[in-house]
């Protein structure tokens, strides 16, 4: 049986050579994302800004203008309407009314009653009420947990590998998060708590990717003691390329199915993850690996820290088999 080969054996793509172009592109992408976040801002859901969210399902498409008129007659503050999934579903967002919880409850009831009067077929699928106090905490806790997790990762990578790896991983992870946020600013997709989980997934996946390549770089650093560092990173990225492509393909296949068939609730969330996987793969190859060269990784420190190899006799033999030596 012939098996599927997506990446041919023994590729020798010069990733490192392209690193200045890639750096420029990365910086551009990051700056563009930051600009987008700063100017357009994120479409924060009620989770993060507080307020009321009523999701209404109708048996047939409704005109948003007409619905807006119906609701604004109630004088309940600035209304934001958004089609959600199909033309039959509308998410209605309202500011939190002044006063206590009963005030919010009254607003919800009045809005529901008014809509039900005009559209007897309406079904209220979801109601969220989040007070400003809770939303502030949710933002703070979310950011805090993500930052702390990234910091913990960096410390581990530093301890297990070398500080260069820790720094490059950290920078690449921030890059992934910023670009994903930029995507949300660009598309105005609603940014809610579930998206935070999606971003955590991206960080986790991207991290996995970086560790795999870092691990191979470390292995090759010990194996090919004479090789120039750029060539060594190229070799490592090329050697792990089949794995990178295979895993990314599997994730894309899985997330693609979730995106197409998974229904409305998880759509924003899966699209974020899908994008994040692509960004994460890119940043593993171009951001973190290339950054290692810029940081001037030094093989002498690594050799001192070297843990005993798992199979020294076979590794020794392999020194003769290197296929890539630019000095030759």
């Amino acid at each position, binding site marked *: *049986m012939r*098996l*599927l080969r*997506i990446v041919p054996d023994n590729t020798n793509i010069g990733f490192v050579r392209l690193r200045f172009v890639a750096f420029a592109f990365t910086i551009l992408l990051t700056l563009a994302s930051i600009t987008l976040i700063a100017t357009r801002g994120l479409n924060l859901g009620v989770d993060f800004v507080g307020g009321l969210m009523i999701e209404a399902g109708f048996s047939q498409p409704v005109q948003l203008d007409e619905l807006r008129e119906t609701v604004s007659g109630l004088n309940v503050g600035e209304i934001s309407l958004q089609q959600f999934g199909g033309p039959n579903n509308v998410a209605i967002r309202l500011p939190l009314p002044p006063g*206590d*919880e009963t005030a919010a*409850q009254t607003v919800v009831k009045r809005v529901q009653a008014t809509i039900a009067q005009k559209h007897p077929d309406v079904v209220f*699928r*979801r109601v*969220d*009420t*989040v*007070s400003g*106090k*809770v939303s502030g905490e*949710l933002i703070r*806790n*979310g950011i*805090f*947990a993500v930052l*702390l*997790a*990234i910091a*913990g990762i960096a410390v*581990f*990578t530093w301890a*297990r590998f070398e500080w260069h790896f820790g720094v490059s991983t950290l920078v690449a992870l921030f890059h992934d998060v910023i670009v994903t946020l930029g995507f949300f600013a660009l598309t105005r997709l609603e940014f809610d*708590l*579930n998206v*935070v*989980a*999606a971003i*955590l*997934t991206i*960080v*986790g996946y991207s*991290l*996995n990717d970086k*560790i*795999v390549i*870092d*691990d*191979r770089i470390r292995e090759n650093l010990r194996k090919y003691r004479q090789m120039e560092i750029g060539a060594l990173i190229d070799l490592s990225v090329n050697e*792990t390329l*089949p*794995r990178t492509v295979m*895993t990314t*393909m*599997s994730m894309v296949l899985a997330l*693609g199915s*979730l995106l*197409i*068939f*998974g*229904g409305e*609730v*998880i759509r924003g969330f899966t699209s974020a*993850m899908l994008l994040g996987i692509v960004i994460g793969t890119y940043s593993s190859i171009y951001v973190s690996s290339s950054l290692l060269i810029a940081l001037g990784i030094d093989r002498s420190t690594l050799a001192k820290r070297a843990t005993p190899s*798992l*199979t020294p006799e076979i590794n020794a033999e392999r020194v003769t088999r290197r296929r890539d030596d630019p000095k030759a």
Partner: protein
Amino acid sequence: MLDFPRWKIWSICLTLLVGVLFAIPSFLPEATVAKFPPGVPSARFNLGLDLSGGSHILLEAATDDLEKQQLAKMEETVRTEMRRGDPQVNIGDISTTGNRLSFFVRDVTQLDAAVDRARTLTSAVGVTGKRDWDVAVVDSTRIVMTPTKAGLAYATDEAMKVAVEVVRKRIDELGTREPTIIRQGDDRIVVQVPGLQNPAALKALLGKTAKLEFKLVDLTADPAQIAQGRAPIGSQVLPYLDNPAGGQRIAVQRRAILSGDELIDAQVARDQDGRPVVSITFNSAGGRKFARVTQENVGKPFAMILDNQVLSAPNINEPILGGKAQISGNFNAESANALAISLRSGKLPVALKVIEERTVGPDLGADSIRSGAIAAIIATVAVIAFMIATYGRFGVYATLAVVINIFVILGVMAIINATLTLPGIAGFVLTIGAAVDANVLINERIREEQRRGRNVIQSVELGYKEASRTIFDANVTNLIAAIIMIVFGSGPVKGFAVVLTIGIATSVFTAVHFTRMLVALWLRKQRPTHLNI
């Protein structure tokens, strides 16, 4: 590599079998699981409200309210204790403004004695060695008592313990299905009721403190003064919306003659005119007190006060013996029932405010589950096809590992009774991705080694060895992140991290040890000279 002892095979298979078995009840209808004989695992993992529909309410205690209560209580104690003790300490000008209790000691020579006596009224907080009140002297004539942080924290903690129980009782009385009531942090309670569509009734019930008191009406008060909200010393003005005399206010004595604590039952009944009332029964001590007060005050009105609002202020026509009374007010059947439930479940030691509320309709929940399940199956099939197309036999092994891994994760979630939410599914996706990745790493490494000219056994052995290190590094990093998120994160972040933690543990086991066993058994039997990988 080929050396795979029998005990190892057995322990791997047994571990996985147990995990899979625990996952089974979660896929069977609830009724079937309920019929399982004892001893058979019947634990299921739960679906979060975002997937199954229901109401989620986050309540926060009004701690400033609690602080006021503490001050008022201490004020009462100080008044009685200073007068009662020997020698009697003459105090005056008691004030509780600025969150501290301060009073004037008239006789300066008694100041030290007064301080000592005030100190005896404070108590130690736990084992911290701190006291719940600070006692200080100001201007050599005033004593100032300030509640300490530790004291307030302790009072909050005690109040919250009671509040959780009261909330649980009230919700149980509503007869809703499997509510979850959990204390969160210092001053919050999370209430989750699956399937509940309209949480208005629930919130009305939780919003009531249900502090019931009986106080005598102060007949000496001047109506003009009452209208301005001023009452004679020892009395207070309370809102009384149904006041037949008009004005919606009434003056009552500060001292309660009886409180709701002595209540043993509350039921909805009808009065002569068929209007709903709440009929209450006191315990024997309360009944005796009530009898004595009504005997002494025949012809005078007393007020029934709920949460500082007067419900009714009837005249005592005759002594009420036997400890039964009726609360009338502006009730309908529903509000009378809510009051009866609130009274039965006891008063909340502190008022609770709803600060977050989420309701998911059942059809949205059902839709999400259905499309989620379909998508998950399609995703799994796609990945399996891809794996087998790429790695052949090794792809089949990897598939087996991933599928078993899915069941084991669900089994572990059932054992620890975890809840699967939308963010949890994200964690799931990442875990499956990592499990696939582990197999990809191993298989790619085997291919690489074979390409380098190693024989079959060497390639497989090296492939597993070298890839295992990478897999270990990658998973430990993710595990660190997951544990940090469990400890510091909340809500969705936590839901994500819990699934991820379980998944990392199980996927390393299935992806590395289980497939290795399958490969070893196959190699031993077939002894191939070349691997098609």
